[in-house]
């Protein structure tokens, strides 16, 4: 595999992973069932670090739109016992600056959010209004990675992942605590596996 194809692969992977975290549509679910699952699987197992069985386990065979839609609402949207907000700030200390709340944890708009905003600004990227209070949302981070890979920004990507995607373990823990199961639980684990096993370094 050449350098560029890997980068293209990675870009594709990030993009699919991001897409999977968005409000599900019937189109997306049937795409996943018909093509997406196999495609993502083959992209992922092109990284020798990833074990085929492990990857397979994280990718359910057939998704049911209604079911996924329901899970999505209770896991990401509706206030309730299972909602999780996958934004980096919440899982990290709030700020490293001089602040009374420097080492507080569990809040939005921390340093990581601010840094994301700066990156977006520098790259002239606009984010949707509903993400203005969580520019460090996992979806945006994955999308940014996809864009960066596409544009051959490998060095920055590595730096970015080291700094900004070291919290997926805590995210998985939070989902476990909130008794997630099914597609999104596996998806989050897959994302974690990808970063944790340092696939991006390949």
């Amino acid at each position, binding site marked *: 595999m050449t350098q560029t194809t890997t980068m293209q692969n990675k870009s594709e992977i990030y993009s699919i992973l991001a897409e999977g975290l968005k409000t599900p549509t019937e189109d997306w679910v049937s795409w996943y069932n018909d093509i997406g699952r196999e495609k993502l699987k083959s992209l992922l197992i092109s990284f020798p670090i990833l074990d085929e069985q492990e990857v397979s386990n994280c990718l359910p065979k057939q998704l049911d739109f209604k079911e996924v839609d329901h899970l999505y609402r209770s896991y990401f949207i509706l206030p309730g016992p299972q909602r999780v907000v996958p934004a980096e700030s919440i*899982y*990290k*200390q709030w700020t*490293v600056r*001089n*602040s*009374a*709340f*420097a*080492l*507080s*944890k569990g809040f939005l708009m*921390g*340093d*990581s959010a601010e840094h994301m905003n700066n990156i977006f600004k520098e790259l002239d990227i606009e984010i949707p209004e509903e993400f203005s209070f969580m520019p460090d949302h996992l979806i945006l981070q994955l999308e940014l990675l996809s864009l960066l890979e596409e544009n051959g920004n490998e060095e920055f990507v590595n730096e970015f992942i080291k*700094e900004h995607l*070291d*919290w997926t373990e*805590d995210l998985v823990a939070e989902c476990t605590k909130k008794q997630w199961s099914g597609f999104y639980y596996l998806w989050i684990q897959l994302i974690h596996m990808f970063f944790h096993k340092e696939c991006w370094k390949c």
Partner: protein
Amino acid sequence: MARYGMLIDTIKCVNCYACSLACQTQNGLPDDENFIYFLEKEEGTFPNVKRDFLPVQCQHCDEPACEEVCPTGATYKDEDGIVVLDNSKCIGCKYCGVACPYSARVQLHDSMYKKGTYEDAGREYNYTVEKCRFCKELVDNGEQPACVTTCISNARIFGDLDDPESELSKAIVEKKAKPLRADLGTKPKIYYVR
């Protein structure tokens, strides 16, 4: 040059945690780390009972046990008698924590470093063993420590022990305030009214 000390009037203390939270925010500590902790003691039997609230923090000993054992000189007493820490010298050996009879040393624990510390950003104080510093930054600026300012009950008085005219020195005499466990020999400079 001064010899800073404090008085804590436990008769006035209502165990409200305001000082520890003000301290936590003054020093930007994580939610589960505090330089001030509280002991409570109950005496007597119903209905003749007394509850004693005791806020404890670094006593700024004149002969600090922590300084004595510190192998690197990281812990030292500054010219105003405040026991401080040079983070760049601290190696995290925790000797000070073991030596301190008041359990006043706090090792900022792992969890706050594991996530979200950007190691490249030049953080120096990983694993240093922190403590109350009498809000040195504020005091140097002519202000009072945060726990003193925030204490609603006015249970805390800060000042110069060498100045017999200071509110602190006078209050110590008037209220017969005494250090905690003076018998331990570190010559603590926080005086308690009990």
